[in-house]
C-alpha cells in the first residue's frame, strides 16, 4: 500500500487523486459526522446543516458556529468569529499563488473555494514536487469536500445515535497526514526551523485567549523568523 514518491519520477508516478485524498476523507468523515450531530442538536435544519458544509467548508469554524447558534449568539458575532477563525487561509492562498498564476481566473476561484488546512498541506507538497495537474488537484479537492459533506449529513440524520468511532483510530488520520507531509517538507535548515517554531508557537498561543489565531500567528512568526535569520538564509535555497 505504498506509493513511491521518488523525486525523479514524482510527476509520472503521482498516486491517484483518491489515494491522496483518502487520509483527508478518513479524517473528515468522523469530524463531519460530529458536526452534523451537534448542528441538529443546536437547532439547525437538515438543509442548513448540509448547506454550511457545502458553502463554508471549514471544520473548526462550523463546530464553533453551531455551538454559538445553540447558545443563542447573534448572527453578527457568529459571522465575525468565522472570519477570525478562517483568516489563516490568507496565508495558504498567498503561499500557493505562484503555482496557480498560469491558471484561468475561474479555475483559481474554484480551487480556492475548497482550500482547507488539509488540502493546503497536501497541495503545497504536491506542487513543490512539480505535481501540478489541475485535473488531479481539483479532483482531490472535490473528493475531500464530498467526504466532509457526507459526514455532516450522516451525522445530522443519525442525530442522537452516535456510534463511538474512537476505537477505530480514525481520529488519527489527519495528524498522520500532517506528519507525513511535514517529513516531506523538511528540505533545508530554514524549513526545519520554520516547522519547529511553528509547532511550538502554535501550542503556546493555543493556551492563551488568542487561541483562534494559534495556527495563523504561529505560522507567520515562524516563517518570518526562518526566512530572515542570517543563520538559515545562507544555507537555504
Amino acid at each position, binding site marked *: *500500500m*505504498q506509493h*513511491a*514518491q521518488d523525486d525523479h519520477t514524482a510527476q509520472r508516478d503521482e498516486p491517484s487523486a483518491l*489515494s491522496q485524498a483518502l487520509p483527508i476523507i*478518513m479524517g473528515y468523515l468522523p469530524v463531519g459526522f460530529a458536526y452534523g450531530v451537534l448542528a441538529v442538536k443546536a437547532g439547525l435544519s437538515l438543509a*442548513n446543516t448540509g*448547506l*454550511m458544509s457545502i458553502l*463554508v467548508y471549514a471544520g473548526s469554524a462550523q463546530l464553533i458556529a453551531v455551538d454559538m447558534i445553540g447558545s443563542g449568539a447573534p*448572527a453578527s458575532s*457568529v*459571522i*465575525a468569529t*468565522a472570519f477570525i477563525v*478562517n483568516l*489563516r*487561509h490568507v*496565508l495558504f*492562498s498567498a*503561499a500557493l*499563488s*505562484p503555482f496557480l498564476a498560469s491558471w484561468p*481566473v475561474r479555475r*483559481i*476561484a474554484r480551487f*480556492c*473555494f475548497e482550500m482547507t488546512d488539509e488540502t*493546503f*498541506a497536501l497541495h*503545497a507538497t504536491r506542487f513543490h514536487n512539480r505535481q501540478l495537474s489541475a485535473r488531479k488537484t481539483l479532483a482531490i479537492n472535490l473528493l475531500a469536500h464530498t467526504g466532509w459533506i457526507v459526514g455532516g449529513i450522516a451525522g445530522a440524520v443519525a442525530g442522537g445515535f452516535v456510534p463511538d468511532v474512537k*476505537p*477505530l483510530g*480514525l*481520529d*488519527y488520520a*489527519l*495528524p498522520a*497526514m*500532517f*506528519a*507525513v507531509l*511535514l517529513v516531506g517538507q*523538511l528540505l533545508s535548515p530554514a*524549513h526545519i526551523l520554520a516547522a*519547529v*517554531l*511553528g*509547532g511550538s508557537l*502554535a*501550542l503556546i498561543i*493555543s*493556551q492563551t485567549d488568542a487561541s483562534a489565531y494559534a*495556527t495563523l500567528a*504561529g*505560522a507567520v512568526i*515562524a*516563517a518570518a523568523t526562518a*526566512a*530572515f535569520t542570517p543563520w538559515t538564509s545562507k544555507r537555504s535555497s
Partner: protein
Amino acid sequence: MDQQTILLTVLGMAAVTYLPRVVPALFFASRPMPEALRRFLSVVPPAVLGALLAQSVLLEKGALNLSFDNAFLWASALTSLLAWRTKGFFGPVLAGLCFVALWRAVF
C-alpha cells in the same frame, strides 16, 4: 435562531470564509510577488504543518497533553519515521492508524 436567520448566517459565514481563501491567490496571479514575500512564503508550508501537527497531536480538547500515555505522540513518531525511511504516503498513515487502534484496544 429561526431557520431563515440561520440561512443568512451561513451565507455570511461563507462570504467571510471565501474572501481570505481567494483574494491573495487572485491578487498575485496578475502581478509579480516581491522577493521578500516570496522568500517568506517558501517556508510557510513547513511552518503551517508544524503548527497543525503539534496542535493535532498534543492538544486534547484544547489542553496540552505531553505525557507518555498520549497515543498520538507515539503514533506520529512511528508515522514520521516510516515516512522518512520509505518515502511512502498511505503506508505510514495506515501504520499509524493501526497503532492507535491497537493502543486503544490494549490500554
